[in-house]
């Protein structure tokens, strides 16, 4: 598409000029504070170039890029080995779409400029007893005059320590069927009664938190959409834009996973000193993985193309999610096992690096956050079976509210 060649060239040049060549080494072992600082810096660079909220209308500070243009942008960013911008995932891709779809004009005026300026938001959805079964959430919001009083606990809230706002799902009608008694709020994270506790994950990072709410007051004008209509509002966070931003994943897996493995494995030897890559078992395995990464690129491209033409990321997105996450896991597992003992040496992570940190053993373990997060692969398989193939859903036990 020659119409986008200019954009492609611009982004490419911008990446070369802006992304420090050694940012990974600079960021290796960064603590949480350093990570946030680097993330803010990167966000500001993107914002200055108009790449931060490219899909937003100009009236809200965006660049009004069409979906095909966004595709080009994300492809080039990943080709340029850009850092992964994590701190504004929730604000840009979860909060903003919900507010744009279901918010009043006043709410849009209030919140969208804050998000456009780079404000950090967090997401208060999951609870200890409401993971895959999110609709079972128990956090309560009780109307009292012009406020709601909120009590409960959320988990897996990323960036909760830095966030200024939180999109919160809470139960406003305990007697209604499960999904029909939930409301969607914007909660100011500086409100009294909120306690945030970081959770250390198994590779030592503390991106996620538990969030406790003890009689937190949320003004009624922070309710997004109708009371008890929150479930529907939350569904709108899974938008086309989010899916499009994933186009870079294949490129990253290719370059920092597969091709990086081939590059470093060239120096690895078998016990007798012959190259590991001369072992035909190893060759066959890499040959297989090579092709599977190519397939990932093709399948992601096809998904995005369908998006562009038909709009909406359908259940095919679940197929892609399963395929990508399990390919990532298989590739990292293979690489880790091939690396053997040297691969077991503990190295500090590179927090802004996404899923491929050039450390195969760590990346293998970390890959489980993807087979679990964003909807477990078991749930994804249910969706594929039910929505793609029309298979019957599991029957619910008698007497349970839907």
């Amino acid at each position, binding site marked *: 598409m020659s119409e986008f060649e200019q954009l492609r060239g611009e982004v490419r040049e911008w990446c070369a000029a802006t992304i420090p060549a050694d940012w990974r080494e600079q960021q290796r072992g960064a603590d949480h504070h350093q990570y946030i600082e680097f993330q803010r810096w990167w966000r500001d660079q993107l914002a200055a170039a108009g790449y931060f909220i490219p899909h937003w209308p100009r009236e809200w500070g965006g660049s009004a890029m069409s979906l095909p243009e966004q595709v080009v942008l994300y492809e080039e960013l990943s080709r340029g080995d850009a850092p992964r911008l994590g701190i504004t995932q929730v604000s840009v891709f979860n909060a903003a779409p919900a507010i744009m779809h279901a918010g009043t004009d006043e709410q849009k005026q209030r919140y969208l400029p804050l998000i456009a300026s780079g404000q950090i938001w967090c997401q208060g959805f999951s609870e200890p007893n409401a993971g895959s079964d999110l609709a079972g959430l128990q956090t309560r919001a009780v109307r009292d005059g012009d406020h709601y009083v909120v009590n409960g606990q959320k988990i897996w809230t990323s960036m909760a320590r830095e966030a200024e706002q939180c999109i919160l799902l809470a139960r406003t009608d305990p007697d209604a069927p499960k999904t029909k008694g939930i409301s969607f709020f914007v909660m100011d994270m500086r409100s009294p009664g909120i306690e945030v506790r970081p*959770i250390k994950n198994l590779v030592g990072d503390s991106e996620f938190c538990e969030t406790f709410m003890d009689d937190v007051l949320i003004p009624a004008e922070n309710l997004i959409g109708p009371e008890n209509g929150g479930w529907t509002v939350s569904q709108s966070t899974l938008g086309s834009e989010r899916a499009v931003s994933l186009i870079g994943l294949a490129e990253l897996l290719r370059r920092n996973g597969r091709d990086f493995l081939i590059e470093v494995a060239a120096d690895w030897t078998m016990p007798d000193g012959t190259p590991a890559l001369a072992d035909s078992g190893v060759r066959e395995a890499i040959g297989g993985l090579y092709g599977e990464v190519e397939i990932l690129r093709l399948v992601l491209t096809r998904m995005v193309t369908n998006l562009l033409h038909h709009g909406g990321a359908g259940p095919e997105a679940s197929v892609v999610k399963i395929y990508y996450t399990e390919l990532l896991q298989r590739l990292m597992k293979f690489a880790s096992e091939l690396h*053997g003992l040297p691969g077991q040496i503990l190295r500090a992570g590179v927090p802004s690096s996404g899923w491929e940190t050039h450390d195969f*053993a760590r990346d293998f373990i970390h890959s*489980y956050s993807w087979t679990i*997060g964003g909807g477990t692969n078991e749930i994804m398989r249910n969706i594929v079976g039910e929505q793609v193939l029309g298979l019957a859903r599991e029957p619910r036990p008698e007497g349970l509210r839907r």
Partner: protein
Amino acid sequence: MNIVRMSAGERTELQQTSRRVLAERAPMGRVRELLDDDLGHDPTLFSALVELGWTGMHLPETAGGSGVAFADTAVVISELGRAVTAGPLVSSAIIAAGALVLSASADQSALLLPSIIDGSVIATVALAGQGGHCSAASVGPTWRPAAGGGITIDGEATFVLDAASADVMVVFARGEGGVVAALVDRSHPGITVTPTTALDQTRRPASVRFDGVEVSASSMLAEPRDGAALLAAVVDIGATATALDSFGIAEIVVERTAEYVKQRFQFGRSIGSFQAIKHRLADDVLLVETSRVAVDNAAAAVDLGAGMSVRERVIAVATAKAYVCDAAVTICGDSLQSHGGIGFTWEHDTHLYFKRAMLNQALFGTSRWHRHRVADEVLPLARSSSTV
């Protein structure tokens, strides 16, 4: 050599006692405290295990041990894996001591084995080269002849477990003429121990550098003519002990995961009732049961003095090492997936098992290498050069 086999009842009792001792003295809380500890293990635990006779269990009665079959001592090794216990017991009393029993002269044995048994001396084995491989061609340290019939050792051994705690090392070295093995005192000035931090923080590997370390003839354990055979036998002891460690992990992870999915409710029912979860666990039970017979077989093969050919031993040990260590990693990954988000936290124990299983997979030979070893024994024609 008189090998005493326990009855089934005695084995069960040994397992129960071991499990109780470790639960009291090395519970998970203590394991976690030691993760960041410099020494990396609890010397009082080590003393307690010495008191219980664990260091001497399978060593010869002539040296002060109990002469129990390795196949029964295996119970204790698995329990240590199950409890992800840190400490030099296996390195010293199983692997290094095993090397001594196979190769040491009467004088050397008399000097060292009783001390290993009473815990006053901790020993370990140094052999791997760059890349962590442990075949004869990839031994790390090198040797050259020295005056008076001894040797001089240079070079580096990598991933030496418990090197920092060790008083004595059984060092394998490669040179013209072949592989040799020697007893080296850790305090020798030419030895530098540099800790290697592993993903698995319950173990303490280190690189050990040798700069002109002289070894007298009386400290030699194996000359070039029998060094390679000794190396293979010691690697097999290490591989079997590692497979036993992974078996202990595999068993407990399946147990704990089953418990979790039974009591975790989503969508109005226990998630263990969903077939995706249930079938994954069923496959893991299959892996545990097949691993059980595999490690039992390997432990029997390793039994010092067992009348088994080298070929049979290699097949039994390599089979267990490859299969059981792979199985444990699979089971840990499945466990992580079945636990969902909570399994991904540092606070949850899943990652401790997972990381230990991953290190085991690579220690004393990768699964790929061990499968090549089996292939070399069971297939006619060419040996794969990578197993030399």
